[in-house]
């Protein structure tokens, strides 16, 4: 009886201000926790998630897509990419259409800021941003990825379906471009633009 009386008279005073906060906190206790128990519970990554860039593999010709054109090296804001190119042996034997091919590719993940500019600017769709977000290693030198590691990681990404081959991508892009702008799609301008792209940092 006392308690009922007490609550009846005190309800108005206590249903104000600070006490609202107290009851809000109490309400939270009956909700499901939002914690993600990270190592045991892996986060669901968005399809566009960007970790460091990796290189893709052309399974048809059995060689990397990358021709070593250096555009990623030029566009990279933090200069973490080092590329060199060589003549493609498969081109001589007419197995491949690529005249040049990547010789060496070094990526220093320690300095990579995962901005995705290299993927944007690659003309051959040879780079894809991986979903390898837990990049911690014991030794800093292990963060410098060489060509083989990057290609292996890229194959993993391709298997996961985080990257589609350039043929489909390019046709998509073309159709999208046609839908977008009424741009005169002359081959001359296309050539111009590629030549422009390639001399991106000439000043």
């Amino acid at each position, binding site marked *: 009886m*006392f308690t009922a009386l*007490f609550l009846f008279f005190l309800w108005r*005073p206590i249903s104000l201000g600070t006490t609202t906060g107290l009851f809000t906190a109490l309400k939270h206790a009956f909700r499901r926790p*939002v914690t993600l*128990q990270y190592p045991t519970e892996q986060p669901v990554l968005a399809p566009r998630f960007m970790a460091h860039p990796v290189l893709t593999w052309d399974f048809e010709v059995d060689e990397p897509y990358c021709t070593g054109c250096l555009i990623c090296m030029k566009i990279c804001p933090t200069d973490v990419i080092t590329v060199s190119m060589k003549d493609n042996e498969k081109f001589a034997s007419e197995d491949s259409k690529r005249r040049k091919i990547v010789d060496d590719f070094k990526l220093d993940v320690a300095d990579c800021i995962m901005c995705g500019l290299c993927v944007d600017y690659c003309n051959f769709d040879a780079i894809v941003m991986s979903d390898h977000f837990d990049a911690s290693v014991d030794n800093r030198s292990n963060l410098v990825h060489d060509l083989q590691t990057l290609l292996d990681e890229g194959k993993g990404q391709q298997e996961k379906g985080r990257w589609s081959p350039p043929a489909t991508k390019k046709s998509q892009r073309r159709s999208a471009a046609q839908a977008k702008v009424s741009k005169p799609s002359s081959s001359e301008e296309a050539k111009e633009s590629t030549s422009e792209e390639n001399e991106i940092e000439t000043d």
Partner: protein
Amino acid sequence: MNISDYISIFAIVFVMFNGILGSVLVVIYGERKVLARLQQRIGPSRTGPWGILQTLADAVKLVLKEDIRPQNSDRIIFYLAPLIIFTPIFMLWVVLPFGSGLVLGDIDLGLFYVSALLGLSVVGMVAAGWSSNSKYAMLGSARSAAQLISYELPLILSILSVGLFAQLFTDNPFNLSSIVNAQAGLPFIFVMPLAFVLFLIGGLAETARIPFDIPHADEEIVGGAFVEYSGIRWGAFQLSEYTGLITMAFLASILFLGGWSGPFSDKFVWLQPFYISSKTAFIILLAFWIRAPLPRLRIDQLMAFAWKAIIPISFANFILVSLVVFIGDRISLPIFQIQLILGLLNLISMIALAYLLTSRRKRRLAVYRERWGEK
């Protein structure tokens, strides 16, 4: 005293000490879990099943940590300060009864002993802050001195009003066991809820918990008096803080919630410790709940709250209780009627106070309403 007496004393002290240490571990774990749930988190979950070994692991870490003493600090006082805080709170447990007869020293002036020892921890805080030769620690110890002394008054006044009221039931009103026995019929919380609320506020402030955690104030003075301590000494401070919390809750359950008494507690003695510890746990949970969403007061607001609101109310409550007991005793009313009268008076005064506070709160809220309007 022969050797077996010494051994038994040693064994009892050993069991008590370790029991308190263990309960501190449980309370810290409970605080982390409860706070986490109040914030939609999980809390410790990795060490052991449901993370129950987390506090133990933390304690082991603290023990193994390097013990650092700042340069130019006062070495002796610096090393003594944790002990000065630590000891009186443990000494309190000598008189606290877990069940009828289940107490180390059932002294007649138990309430005085308790209130005397409660006041001692401030010495340790000041010693810690002064000796560590750090400005943050100094500020923290000055703050805690001011706060602990201010809130001692309402605490002791509400303890004394319990003692006064217990006079009606026993010849030994300051003995904690007889206070519990006096509550076999009706726990004192129903008779004097005002004193209970005052005791809770005073207890929260004494143990420096939010919203009264100004001595620590992690966002301003980063831990206050213990800022320079590390390792096991810091752990000792932490231990005494949480022991203080448990002690306060235990005292509250003895003084107001009827201690070990409960249904069937007379028949089954083993129920008594269970009752008292669950009552203690309830009070501790209340403190955790209050901690979650409330901000901290500023030092001047805290002092104003103590000296302008809480202390006058405690004096009024003390006078009210003594008048009722005195007059009721003189005209030899039955105890039940005294209880009823006191309870009703308390209730009326609490409602009056609440409405008084509400009008004050409304004035405060007017700041919000006038500026931003009802949307």
